[in-house]
């Protein structure tokens, strides 16, 4: 039983079966109302996390993802952003930020909207 126990305890130590994304940051805009502005995180065509902005436009989001691209989707078009990771890009319609699969933790310094 002791041996069985040691085997069981050691087998789930370094598995990447269930990746989870975590991001936090700040939306900067001249005109939007932060209280009614909803950000959504998409992974495999599914909303895995969503939130309304806090006072000052800050947000925290986390949700379960698979090993594929994740997008942070915004209702208004994004002009620029800065983050602590490289490899992120704005989608062609400017409505989302594309996060590569290998990135599971992002801090956005700011996300500036066109509006």
């Amino acid at each position, binding site marked *: 039983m002791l041996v069985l126990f040691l085997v069981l305890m050691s087998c789930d130590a370094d598995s990447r*079966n269930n990746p989870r994304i975590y991001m936090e940051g700040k939306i900067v805009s001249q005109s939007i109302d932060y209280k009614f502005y909803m950000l959504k995180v998409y992974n495999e065509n599914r909303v895995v*996390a969503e939130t309304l902005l806090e006072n000052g436009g800050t947000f925290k*989001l986390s949700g379960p993802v698979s090993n594929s691209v994740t997008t942070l989707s915004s209702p208004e078009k994004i002009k620029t952003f800065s983050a602590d990771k490289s490899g992120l890009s704005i989608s062609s319609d400017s409505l989302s930020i594309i996060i590569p699969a290998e990135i599971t933790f992002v801090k956005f310094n700011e996300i500036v909207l066109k509006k």
Partner: protein
Amino acid sequence: MKNLSLVLLLLPMCYLAQKKPDVVANIEAKMAILKPIGNNSLAQDLKTFYGFSLGGNLMTPVNFGVGADFSMLYSNVQYGKRNTYGNVGSPRLSMVNVFLTHRENISEEFLIEELAGLSYTEQKNFFVDGNQLLKNSGFGLLLGGKAIYILDPEAYQAVFVEARFQTFRTNIYNENSEIQKYYDRSYFLTLNLGYRFNF
């Protein structure tokens, strides 16, 4: 450790050597309240879990025994914590525990049992857009104690209160180790109220 090896030696001896039915068995049904504690997602983002549990024990004449049980527990996400818990449905825990027990007879109708063992926990959530299941599972340690009150003179029926502490470690991955720690482990305190039938 010495005690444990003693138990491991004694248990088979008790089963094999004694043909007389001195090994007694019982089954239990329990109501369970489970509170995750610590700075982790299960404790910070979720409400208290409520559920039920079914189990059984075998007890030898030397007051050492083995037991197992199965629990189902249900909870909800706390208001305002959906952004960090994720866009998934209400969580459910399924748990299988196996443990060694030791009994102390305090009086004719009152006993104490301590238990130590292993637990296997599955944390399940449905994704909100469909019926696909998100499943995180892991093993943990289990420690507990039971206060048992025997109801009838033949000692068939008993009621008990049980407190448990257990650890839970699963396989959620995040590249930031602080975030991974927040999501991939927890500690559970459980209070069970139960009914036991001896036979």
